[in-house]
């Protein structure tokens, strides 16, 4: 195409490199395992959402399943209810769990704090517990009959403030969200804590020389430096919350009562796909809901990656 001779021709015969087979060989196991347990099921789910059983035969129906999910009054009601609850669930995590994680990490990184490693372990420990145990413990703690919470409130004379929170439609979702926050607050704490430890001593010293200490040091120096970590935590929370299922299932059951007030996308998917009690499982509609969940999460992650993360300022030391 161009008139200038290429450098290869100028330097004589090309040195033929041996094909680097080892790269392929070393990548292969991971690729096979990942494809088999992640990519293929995902593709199969997406495919299944376009099929439905017609006269006992699995038939391609195009977007008809999605039309039912969004068009049929009952399906749409269940879906939007679950989506709304899921956003509330997410909002509570963002407003309570993450600020609390940042605050805890900031306190833990104070050099004067005693027993810091004890607190760190104690706060992180619930994250390691099985959700079954967490669900069971909290159901007992909040139980109006045997629970310690009505007892403790009674001791300080505030028994009137107690209510069967898990059983009331307007408080159940908040209660379940806060249980989840209690369990997972250790994760943002640890990530932020690590980010705080990464801030070089010189930067802090320089700030101190300029007379920036205490609160203003945190907000003006440390917070901007840990923003990327907060971003990562937000996206992890988003993905985790929109995939959540386990805690609601153990605490409130598969019907996510009372009156569907704690129904999130995960529980709706479970009931639809696997069926429940007399309700037989509907794999096609289940796959449809799973596809919508996948798209929601994909949209959220893309938004973060392409819009937010690119504008985030990073500091290099």
């Amino acid at each position, binding site marked *: 195409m161009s008139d200038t001779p290429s450098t290869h021709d100028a330097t004589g015969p090309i040195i033929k490199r041996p094909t680097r087979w080892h790269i392929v060989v070393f990548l292969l196991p991971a690729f096979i395992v990942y494809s088999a347990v992640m990519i293929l099921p995902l593709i199969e789910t997406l495919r299944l959402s376009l099929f439905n059983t017609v006269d006992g035969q699995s038939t391609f129906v195009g977007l008809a399943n999605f039309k039912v999910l969004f068009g*049929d*009054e*009952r*399906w749409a009601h269940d879906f939007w209810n679950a989506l709304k609850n899921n956003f509330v669930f997410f909002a509570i995590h963002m407003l309570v769990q993450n600020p609390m994680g940042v605050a805890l990490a900031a306190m833990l990184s104070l050099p004067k704090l005693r027993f810091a490693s004890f607190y760190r372990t104690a706060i992180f420990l619930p994250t390691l517990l099985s959700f079954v145990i967490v669900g069971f413990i909290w*159901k007992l703690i*909040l*139980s*109006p*009959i*045997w629970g310690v919470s*009505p007892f403790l409130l009674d001791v300080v004379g505030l028994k009137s403030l*107690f*209510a*069967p*929170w*898990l*059983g*009331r*439609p307007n408080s159940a979702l908040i209660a379940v969200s806060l249980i989840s926050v209690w369990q997972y607050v250790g994760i943002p704490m640890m990530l932020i804590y690590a980010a705080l430890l990464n801030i070089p001593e010189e930067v802090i010293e320089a700030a101190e020389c300029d007379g920036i200490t205490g609160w203003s040091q945190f907000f003006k120096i440390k917070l901007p430096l840990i923003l990327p970590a907060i971003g990562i935590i937000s996206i992890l929370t988003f993905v985790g919350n929109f995939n959540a299922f386990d805690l609601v299932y153990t605490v409130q*059951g598969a*019907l996510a*009562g*009372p*009156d*569907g007030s704690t129904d999130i996308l995960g529980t709706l998917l479970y*009931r639809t796909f696997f069926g*429940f*009690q*007399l*309700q*037989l499982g*509907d794999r096609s*509609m289940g796959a449809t809901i799973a596809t919508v969940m996948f798209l929601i999460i994909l949209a959220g992650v893309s938004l973060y990656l392409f819009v937010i993360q690119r504008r985030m300022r990073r500091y290099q030391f």
Partner: protein
Amino acid sequence: MTRNAIKGLLLATSILGTAGFAQAADVTLTVESWRNDDLAIWQEKIIPAFEAKNPGIKVVFAPTAPTEYNAALNAKLDAGSAGDLITCRPFDASLELFKKGHLASLNDLPGMENFSPVAKSAWTTDDGATAFCVPMASVIHGFIYNKDAFDTLGISVPTTEAEFFAALEKIKAEGSYIPMAMGTKDLWEAATMGYQNIGPTYWKGEEGRAALIKGEQKLTDDAWVEPYRVLAKWKDYLGDGFEAQTYPDSQNLFTLGRAAIYPAGSWEIGLFNTQAQFKMGAFPPPVKNAGDTCYISDHNDIGVGLNAKGANQEAAKKFLSFVSSPEFADIYANSLPGFFSLNSTAVKMADPLAQEFVSWREKCKPTIRSTYQILSRGTPNLENETWTASANVINGTETPEQAAEKLQKGLDSWFKPVK
């Protein structure tokens, strides 16, 4: 020395054992089941009773875990490796097997005449023409009460709705007992122990249920809304924080003697007998006015069917006839108090509480849970919707009329009445 002796013994038993086996057992029948809790009863009581009468037939009871049963059974049936006898889940799961040709018709089985149409309803085709499983056991709903509490408070067993609420009021006013142990947290308690328990009295059992399936009645009719109105009144007599009270909570409240009345299913009898330290009694769902016919929910739970492709059809049929005999009913019902035989011949049971429950069959008309047959085939699922609706009504977050309207609307969206 000892080791050699043991080896020799083992060898001898294995050879002699198989030799004896081959001689005595011309046919071996395998029973597929999910009731692994009942393994001992089958091996020690039911199978010996059958084998004693039918030399040449051996029976092996081979249960799988309840949660895996349906899937495992389907796989085995498709592969042709399933046992000769299949324990049947009630309604649609078994109907599906029959439609696929896995279960044989049992219309001409000797012994089927021992069962009423209601007893067979869980295992017949929608038109009622073909039965494909021998009914084995059912569970009955009613109320279990703390006899000691009733005696101290001077309350007699209520028979009408008014007496029932008067009793509850009296227990509440006295204050030492929670009037009724039930919670709405698990939802199904409200529907199964509440709505399906008292409901048949108002919709007149089978009559109402059949009319609903034929489309002659609707869930918004008075007969179907009335039980919700009664349930709504229960709210005042449940324990503090009943909205978050779970099923085990309710069981414990009652067996610890803190509650006076427990809306029950007969399957509780076995557990309550071992846990409760006080005397217990039971009464059927109270009728509206004195002298009205009483109705009870006598819900079919377990049956046995014949694998249509099994190798030993004749022997298997003999076993099924045995299952339909009063003798089997007697063994089964007495080994598992609370699981009642569906046989028309009354069974004398040793357990007084179980005997009390089953005695209602003589004076009351039995029916099954209204949502189980045909009506829970579509989406939204009527049974699941009923759970939520019943809990809402008791919690007071929905009026009985709203709940009924919602249920009927959901049903209308897919259900075509069976004519």
